[in-house]
């Protein structure tokens, strides 16, 4: 299990994956608006999405767990 965390505080504006989906290394998982930019949050390693803990519009803190991969 690997937790994907928010690199900085901001607002989730788009979730690009769903639980059960396989993702590749460096694939964009969701978009986090912060620092006046729409920042992609990417997978560092390939894996399967186990759980998505945020939805568009959610405000998140730095290091908050956004999704869990297995």
């Amino acid at each position, binding site marked *: 299990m690997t937790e994907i965390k928010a*690199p*900085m*505080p901001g607002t989730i504006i788009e979730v690009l994956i769903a639980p059960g989906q396989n993702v590749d290394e460096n694939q964009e998982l969701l978009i986090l*608006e*912060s*620092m*006046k*930019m*729409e*920042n*992609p949050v*990417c997978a*560092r390693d390939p894996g399967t999405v186990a759980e998505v803990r945020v939805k568009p519009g959610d405000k998140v803190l*730095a*290091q908050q767990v956004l999704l869990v991969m297995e």
Partner: protein
Amino acid sequence: MWQKEVEELARRKARAEEMGGAESVARQHAAGKMTVRERIAALLDPDSFSETGALTGEGRYDAQNRHLEAFTPCPIVMGLGRIDGRPVVVQGDDFTIRGASVGRMYKAKLAYNGKMAYELRLPLIRLLDGAGGTIREVAQIGYLELPYINDVAPGMLADMMSRVPMVSLVLGPVSGIGALLTVESHFSVMVKEKSQVFVGGPPLVEWAQGQRVTKEELGGYKIHTRISGVVDNLAEDEADAMAQTRRFLDYLPANVWEMPQRKYAERDDPDRRDESLLSIVPREGKKTYDMRRIMTAVFDRDSIFEIGRDQGCSQITALARLDGYPVGVLASDVRHKAGAFSWDVAEKFQRFVDLCDTFHLPVVNLIDQPGFFIGVEAEHQGTIRKGVRASFAVLQATIPWASIYIRKCFGVAGGAQSDPRKLNWRYAWPSAYWGNIPIEGGVFAAHKAEILADPDPMARHEALQAYYAGFAQPFRAAEHFGIEDIIDPRDTRPLLCRWVALAFEGERLHLGPKGRGMRC
């Protein structure tokens, strides 16, 4: 006349070739690792290795103290060799002999190899796979030494960082002195899931702190290539680690008294104008883009070698070529933390600038810098001190420097991108905008009373933003010679190729060690 001794010499050398013995070698292979002699053969040009100190080891003699009965080689193999025809000094831990634990003779050989690299002015390559010091040494010498007290090597290694390229390949678990040698390098690479680096390994951590951790959790690649920055690059296997080492050295001179070599297998047209450069940067300021596409379009075909890709990710550092000339490349990656300059970027940036300056690699900086990373976390990390320290690397460097302003350049971190006292070879793309203070936040701060007093504060705020945005066009800066030129992005490569030829000639006048010593 001396036939007997010559035969003994051959026997002893053959014994050294056996390393820790067949069983130990089989265990090394079963762990998916090469032996030290296989590694040296794989790294160097065929048949180029000439060994120093192959006879060193522990001999056991018969009762008459005449005939050798058993022999254990010293667990470090070293000597001279060639990579792509160029001489190098190499050393490798022999894990098949007591886990390559460090004793007297190991230290003596290590120091001698260091002197070879230092005095012959040759790159030093280390193949690390060892457990570090052993308490057995104490019984051999009969007392407890103060650390380093009789050892000249550490001081010499610090000097060497400013004189010859040093590369460390981490090919197994390393701790103690192996961890030290890992970071005393200009480039380090570790093998995925086969190598770990720690000051003290899991048994020591459990004994001293009561915490149980695996080797990977404590010092695996996910820690050191992604978080700590202790190791620069990740390799898929040992062959990949060696290929990366050869590649790294290809861009560097043998020492700081030489220029790096201009070369290409097949010349990439210096006047090539890549159409994609006109459309990679989106018009909407909020949208990110792939800086590596810009790099690929600008630098020589297949010439980009990235260092530290997985750490301080908002800053790209790479070696590359322009019309065959090796250069250092700094580039922002706005896909990570909006490209902001964070503590780990600061460390990566500083080391890379020092590397380029030390080895006479002109720097090309592709800038999209929103500023230092802000927020609670960033303050805790001491971002401002680490960032300003990194900016000193730019100020102390004497290497030719070219900057391409691609999009943003703001604040102190924006100022750290070049040295205003020097001839700053700079071009702005039409997509560029910059300032000491970003307009979005700055307008409200400066016009707060006026905005809040307005019957429609939102409209007033927007009108003021639009007014200030007018100043942000790079053409306004160019009118005031605030930037020397704005260019068609497709002209970036031709212009940089012309610059680099001049930069190289200029840098030839700065051969030798730079005034600022290089720290690891």
